[in-house]
């Protein structure tokens, strides 16, 4: 008997995401509704500017990601992938950590590519590590973090190091403990190519897949961008910064902040450095590692890729390891 609830509709996920976002907004600014009428309209311009900025920056890379993914689906046979990844799990995880070098694009484009790779036979643990570590361990992020923290280069190495450490942990746990398939099956049959008729023109197929995937992933991107832009435009940063000044709270707060702001990993170092006077280096490190791994946009896209329980598990693991790691490194090496 087909279990319909398994493939929970993205509608439900979006609804919960929206409600949660509203809850966050209201807890930060309880008078939101009452002041809403005037400031809402005034803020619309800022909202629009933020939203268009985020989308313009992300769309080319999402497009690239879906075309690369579709190309791989149609033109590259599965066996090729199986041969590329080392059998040894530890080596596989390390390779995955470094794969980010090959795809230094906005992380939005990464998820359709990984979805395709996993469907083509890439082991799950490798794919998971790639998704989370790829956005951080690449030359562009290295350079931008270095530029933002010009006089504190230890931040750059701490960021890369912590990201790889978290990746190792994630990969190890997924490899040893995940038995059931957490992939969300797409509508129709699974994404395997076995029974696929290639009778038609391959180019047409590539476009068909790319288009479908663009709209599939694009909806999460747009939803995430709407929420992010709203937070950016309507919630003053000083309000947010007022919370979480204690040592324990500051790490926790910076991670939540990174989640809400949903900045591209290429530019978040800059924003983090502007908080250098009010937050400890350890909490900034938490911001820099947690943000690219998990934010509103990527969380929504992950939900389209994996089943909800798996996403929650990953979220918990990442949150805990980044928190502890940043605290440890912050205390011992950054001060």
């Amino acid at each position, binding site marked *: 008997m087909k279990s319909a609830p398994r493939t929970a509709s993205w*509608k439900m996920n979006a609804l919960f995401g929206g409600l949660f976002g509203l809850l966050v907004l209201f807890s930060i600014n309880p008078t939101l509704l009452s002041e809403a009428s005037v400031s809402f309209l*005034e*803020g*619309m*311009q*800022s909202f629009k*500017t*933020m*939203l*268009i*900025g*985020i989308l*313009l*920056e992300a*769309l*080319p890379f999402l*497009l*690239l990601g879906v*075309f690369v993914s579709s190309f791989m689906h149609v033109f590259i046979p599965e066996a090729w992938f199986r041969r590329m990844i080392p059998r040894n799990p530890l080596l596989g995880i390390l390779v995955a950590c470094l794969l980010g070098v090959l795809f230094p694009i906005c992380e939005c484009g990464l998820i359709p590519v990984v979805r395709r790779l996993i469907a083509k036979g890439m082991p799950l643990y490798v794919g998971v590590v790639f998704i989370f570590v790829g956005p951080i361990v690449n030359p562009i992020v290295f350079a931008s973090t270095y*530029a*933002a*923290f*010009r*006089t*504190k280069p230890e931040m750059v190495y701490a960021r890369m190091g912590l990201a790889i450490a978290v990746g190792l942990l994630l990969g190890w746990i997924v490899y040893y403990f995940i038995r059931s398939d957490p992939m969300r*099956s*797409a509508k*129709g*049959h699974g*994404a395997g190519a076995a029974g696929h008729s290639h009778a*038609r023109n391959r180019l*047409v197929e590539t*476009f*068909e*897949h*790319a*288009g*479908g*995937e*663009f*709209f*599939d992933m694009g*909806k999460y991107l*747009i939803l995430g*961008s709407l929420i992010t*832009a709203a937070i950016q*435009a*309507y*919630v003053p*940063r000083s309000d947010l910064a007022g919370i979480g000044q204690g040592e324990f709270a500051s790490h926790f707060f910076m991670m939540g902040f990174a989640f809400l702001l949903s*900045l*591209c990993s*290429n*530019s*978040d170092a800059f924003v983090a450095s*502007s908080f*250098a*006077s009010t937050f400890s*280096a350890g909490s900034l490190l938490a911001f820099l590692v947690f943000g690219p791994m998990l934010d509103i946009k990527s969380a929504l896209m992950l939900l389209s890729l994996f089943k909800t329980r798996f996403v929650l598990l990953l979220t918990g693991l990442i949150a805990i390891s980044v928190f502890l790691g940043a605290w440890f490194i912050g205390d011992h090496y950054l*001060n």
Partner: protein
Amino acid sequence: MNGKRRLLSHYGIRAILLIAFSFYIVHLVNADKLQYYIVPRLIPYVKYGAVGLFLLAVFYLYRIIQLEDKPSEAHCECGHEPPRSPFRSGVLYVLFAIPLLLGFALPDRIMGSDIVTVKGMNLQVAEVAKPSPVPADPIAPSPSPSPSPSSSPDTNETASDAAAELPGEKTIDNPSDELDRLFPTYEYSEEFAELGKKLFKREVIKVRSVGFLEMLTMLDMYKNNFIGTDIVISGFVYREDDMGTDQFVVSRLAMLCCSADSMPYGFLVKADSAVALPNDTWIAMTGKLSTTVYRGNEIIQLEASDISVIETPEDPYVYPYIDDFAALAEQ
């Protein structure tokens, strides 16, 4: 039959949405307003993106034509079929339509005071550049090794706070020693110190768009060495609620990737004519550098001697500077 019509309408809506998106980008390119939203270096990618969107739209149109001729080519079973229920389809396409509506309905504006109010103005740029405290050298004159401004209220020479670099008995008998003393280099801030040394004796220092942040950082780090120097700078007027009627900030927004990550930076300005300058007015000004205390922190304040209103620049934002700092010293 029903399936084919449904598919046709999906393809049709998608084609329209995609064309609209690429058209919006083309509009921004023609109006030369792309840089309001993203960093110049990313502009080529957005243009390629527009081409890609357009190609996808053309593809859907092609499919529509193809479906009309050969209905049997309808489905792909590849897992990317459009949603079945009209409600879900509706939500999906409305979601895509929202940015388009906002894009076309609201004007494309430069970010100004409204954004700065939300993001918060940064008046202490150098705090970012302060390195980790260097362990105290037993013969260093200053008791506090940490170079933070709040820990040395009694000295007017922040230079004496420099830690392990200075042995106490170094005599100042030649200019380069003097410069080294005034521009202590912490572990990684040599570039700023060198820039400072080059600009030290100038009477007028121009802060341009190129290298704006880096100049601000250097001036803030070594502010006490530049007291009395005339600073030439341009930016837009911004005020916080707790500023006096003769105070405002001459500010710029720094962008690294896109509008969402932009950060405001600037100098506090004291001017009698401030009242006549509403927020968001673009000005070019000259002012003498001095320091003042604002919200408990010692920051730079420019005493304005000349302010003129200018046209909003074509490219109002500033970007991080990656070339050689020596170029900044050429005025």
